[in-house]
């Protein structure tokens, strides 16, 4: 994870407040429209390496669209995304994964046709021999690395608290465990930046706290985390920095305390007069 510190903070007019530490992600004037409806408009913010950075906002604020733009699932209508010093706007998700970005999904995207362990092993894809001929003829080097990947995947499942599901088929696992399986799969790619889209949605209070711990551990290991979450207790508790969105535009940003005290944020959530 030493690459996190490999580039200096850019000196051109940053649209957000100056923050210590190198920048890992910079979003500049990003916009995306769907059939004339603006989902994200002229949005700029930066994410510092090593932070847990939360994106909050009411339903329909554009949080998931923002995730899809940053991770290449959607192409932006305008603006730029800079990741780890390079302009990556509109690049395909698999290329961004190779640069060190991975994510989870609000609506589960599990490989239900595989075992839980194989789901996590797919996350090792970039680190394995994925050529056809070695696979067809089972080259010893491929088998050895595959076996290492299997051990590593099992360790990751244990790390996120899924040790009892290591031998399970993905389609036999409960919802809360699948949420964590997505995190383990994303971590298997060894990302610099991990985007978590509502990891606690649909979980009970205990499970929610466990996810909270998992995220803290991940961040402590040097992975930068961008979090979209409706559980405000979790967001306020673990975030270093928060960007609040409403109607696809930035409403406020700052530390949890600053954002929580911001009148615009309170109005957006509680529905004040426009």
């Amino acid at each position, binding site marked *: 994870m030493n690459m996190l510190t490999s580039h200096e903070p850019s000196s051109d007019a940053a649209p957000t407040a100056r923050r210590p530490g190198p920048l890992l992600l910079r979003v500049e004037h990003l916009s995306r429209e769907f059939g004339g409806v603006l989902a994200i408009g002229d949005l700029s913010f930066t994410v510092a390496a090593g932070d847990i950075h939360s994106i909050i906002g009411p339903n329909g604020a554009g949080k998931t669209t923002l995730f899809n733009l940053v991770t290449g699932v959607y192409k932006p209508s305008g603006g730029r995304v800079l990741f780890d010093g390079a302009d990556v706007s509109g690049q*395909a998700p*698999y290329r961004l994964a190779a640069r060190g970005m991975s994510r989870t999904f609000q609506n589960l995207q*599990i*490989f239900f*046709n595989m075992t839980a362990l*194989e789901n996590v092993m797919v996350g090792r*894809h970039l680190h394995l021999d*994925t*050529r056809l001929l070695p*696979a067809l003829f089972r080259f010893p080097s491929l088998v050895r690395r595959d076996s290492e990947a299997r051990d590593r995947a099992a360790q990751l499942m244990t790390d996120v608290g899924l040790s009892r599901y290591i031998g399970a088929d993905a389609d036999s696992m409960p919802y809360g465990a699948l949420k964590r399986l997505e995190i383990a799969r994303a971590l298997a790619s060894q990302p610099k930046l991990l985007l978590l889209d509502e990891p606690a949605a649909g979980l009970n209070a205990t499970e929610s706290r466990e996810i909270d711990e998992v995220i803290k551990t991940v961040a402590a290991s040097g992975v930068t985390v961008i979090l979209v979450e409706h559980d405000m207790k979790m967001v306020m508790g673990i975030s270093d920095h928060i960007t609040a969105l409403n109607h696809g535009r930035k409403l406020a940003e700052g530390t949890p305390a600053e954002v929580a005290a911001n009148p615009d944020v309170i109005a957006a959530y509680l529905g004040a007069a426009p």
Partner: protein
Amino acid sequence: MNRILHGRLTGLAVLGAIIAVLPVFLTNNFYLDVAILAGFNAVVCVGLNLLIGYAGQISLGHAGFFGIGAYASGVLVGVYGWPPIAALLAGALFVGALAFAVAKPILRLKGHYLAMATLGIGIIVSIVLRTESGLTGGPDGMMVEPFKLFGVELYGEKVWYWVVGVLLFVVVWLSLNLIDSPMGRALRAVHGSEVAAEVVGVDTARFKVMVFVLSAVFASVAGSLFAHYAGLITPAKADFFKSIELVTMVVFGGMASTFGAVVGAVVLTLLPQALTVFQDYQQIVLGAILMATMVFMPKGLLPTLAGLLPSRRRA
């Protein structure tokens, strides 16, 4: 790891044993002939299953690739005097190149649209074979010379049984190896969730193209050898109905199961022969059996039966 390794080796051993012992019961050339045809179908279905069952893409044009392989061997050996093995390789190479060229644009399509596009390929191949009668003999088909390698001529059902048996064994082995590898997991991930596969670094388009090409090449090789075995090939072997038959075998046997594809191919090759006792009603009985299987065993024959066993194996 042990479970998967265990399952693969056990399955292969069982397949090998069946292939080795079966000739004892195949007491005449008709039985051997049916077994050989089942074997050729099984080879194509194992390849097609990689595409349909594992990667989740549909092809209604695979008989076209089988047909190109068959006619490449028929024409190159019969008309141009090539050695059969060179013709087989040339056919496979051409099919691989053709599949690669068409895969990029058509595998962007999904579901019904992909089915339509692959259907189109099969139909084009079939039309070319029917109309280029100068080379292919047109709708009446063409005679194909026997397969010779190093001066040895493969002749007779007994010899061909072993050729097809070994080929099937090798193809199943390759398929099992592939599925339990990083590329195999990437293929299954494409089936499970394309977007999730992409965000962990899987270039989904590339893997879809690769598996399409691979399964087309399997079909081409089977087609070439079939042409030499049968000695007569007709465009019917490449047409739409044959493509549907192949897909039916894969689905009937059980998608995403290599041994299921073999079972499907064998059962659906044998069934029409066994059903001849119903004479005029043969097709109706066959249709009823297919429907009943899909209604009561939606996962296909082998996965359903395997699920009944106490210790379940994946193959």
